[in-house]
């Protein structure tokens, strides 16, 4: 009889309980599933729908991580800042925040969160150097490159590339093309353009001279105009070519720096939440 009443109570309790799919432990399971499926926005929203008592450091970290991955940096920072210094995630949280400040190019905030005694200091310093390289602020980088691990060695190489870039002078390119048409282009490593400009300017100049000499004035003036067009166009083109060359140097530098940072995951440690 006792068992009967216990069973009856059980049935009533099953009847009366809320939808099991909405129970916190199931919401968490579902959110974990979404997180591992890389459906980050939904995962974050599911975690947030948990009551505050269920929001452990791990869950807050995951919410912040979700928002960081989808580029909602403000929301991500809000959650990262909620993780206390006592948490096991704290050091990595600082790296994650550093990464967001780096991506936002916010040097002031990055500086404010760097404390030499903390474990994350070294990695934040690397981000700070990378940010200065990104912004081309090379003046005080040398003083920051104080460590000798592999990343600092690579950053030192980037620093020397940034400090002494392989630029071409726009003035030199212009002057060279003014003296010998096409030579400015050759200086900026546009060899085929340089040779073509030289030949075309030469041919039209010769034709202009020869036609004027033989009093074929109309053709003479026409070829003079074309030759002048090629000549001045080539000077302008050489200056532009030097600018393009320099832009390519900058672009290539920034791409290499970005590839390095992505490869090193912005010095952030990744946890294996999905194994």
């Amino acid at each position: 009889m006792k068992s009967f009443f216990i069973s009856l109570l059980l049935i009533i309790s099953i009847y009366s309980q809320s939808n099991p799919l909405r129970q916190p432990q199931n919401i968490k399971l579902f959110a974990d599933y979404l997180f591992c499926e890389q459906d980050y926005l939904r995962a974050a929203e599911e975690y947030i729908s948990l009551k505050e008592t269920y929001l452990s450091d791990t869950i807050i970290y995951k919410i912040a991580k979700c928002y960081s991955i989808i580029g909602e940096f403000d929301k991500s920072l809000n959650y990262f800042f909620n993780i206390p210094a006592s948490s096991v995630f704290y050091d990595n949280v600082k790296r994650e925040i550093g990464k967001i400040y780096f991506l936002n190019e916010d040097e002031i905030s990055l500086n404010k969160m760097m404390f030499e005694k903390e474990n994350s200091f070294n990695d934040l310093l690397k981000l700070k150097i990378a940010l200065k390289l990104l912004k081309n602020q090379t003046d005080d980088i040398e003083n920051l490159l104080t460590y000798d691990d592999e990343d600092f060695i690579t950053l030192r190489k980037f620093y020397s590339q940034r400090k002494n870039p392989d630029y071409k002078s726009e003035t030199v390119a212009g002057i060279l093309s003014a003296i010998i048409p096409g030579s400015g282009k050759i200086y900026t490593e546009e060899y085929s353009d340089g040779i073509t400009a030289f030949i075309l300017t030469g041919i039209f100049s010769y034709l202009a001279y020869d036609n004027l000499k033989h009093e074929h004035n109309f053709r003479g003036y026409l070829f003079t105009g074309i030759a002048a067009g090629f000549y001045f166009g080539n000077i302008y083109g050489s200056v532009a070519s030097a600018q393009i060359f320099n832009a390519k140097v900058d672009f290539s530098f920034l791409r290499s720096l970005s590839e390095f940072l992505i490869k090193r995951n912005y010095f952030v440690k990744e946890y294996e939440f999905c194994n």
Partner: protein
Amino acid sequence: MNFVIRIFYQLLILSSNLFAQQYLNEQLKTADSLFNAEKYFDAITEYKRLLYFDSTKQFSFQANFKIGLAYKEGGKYSEAIKYFGLAEVNAINSEQIFESKIYQVRTNILRMTVFRADKILDELENDNRFAGHLKEIKYWKAWSKIFADEWEEAYHIFSQINETKLARLCLNTQNKFYSVDFAKYSSMIFPGFGQFYTGEYISGLLSLGWNIFSGYLTISAFNAERIFDGIVSANLLWFRFYRGNFQNAEKFAREKNISITNETLQFLNENFNGLKP
């Protein structure tokens, strides 16, 4: 007494299964109501929740199919195709397979991956299970041809299945097109003609003028026995203008055809009430 308790426990287990079933049905209703209210983001979340907790996979087809539809409505075509594919895998009869495959076709058409749509349609056409759906298969094949810019082919297929309105529209569009080859070759014969043909009169006049001028320079140089002048003028002036002239005519014809296509597609989008991809 033991017997009564045993029966009672069995009833308990049975009832807990029934409750689970009830909750899953409720979950499906919730997801469907969000879907019907066009709240696609939330609907996808709820269908995914249903899929996650549906251990017997009884809702796999419906949920995956609806997720596919929701992604399609949201313009996330690659995601939609993925879920229509999952719906196909979880289909329990040939009708469900057909439905999920047709939606893969429709989404592929919208994604402009018409080669993939054609491949699926060919598979459906050659599958005896779907012999009763031949008209529908051809209908989507014609739509695929429209998006592949093969209007004449689309016209023929629509005509075969008596879709006269669409067939006429395809034929009209086809007839409006400029011949790219005619524009190009007529400009080769008479500089500027291709531009006139495509309605670009100023460009045609300019093209004609430049060709006359550079041609005159070249010929007059040869007449004056200044051979080098003539060769340079021909190569660096006349031939450049001549080549630019027919390339320009070809480009105009292509651009005009693109705008004709876009006009028809816009018309279909805004005014056609039948089934669209």
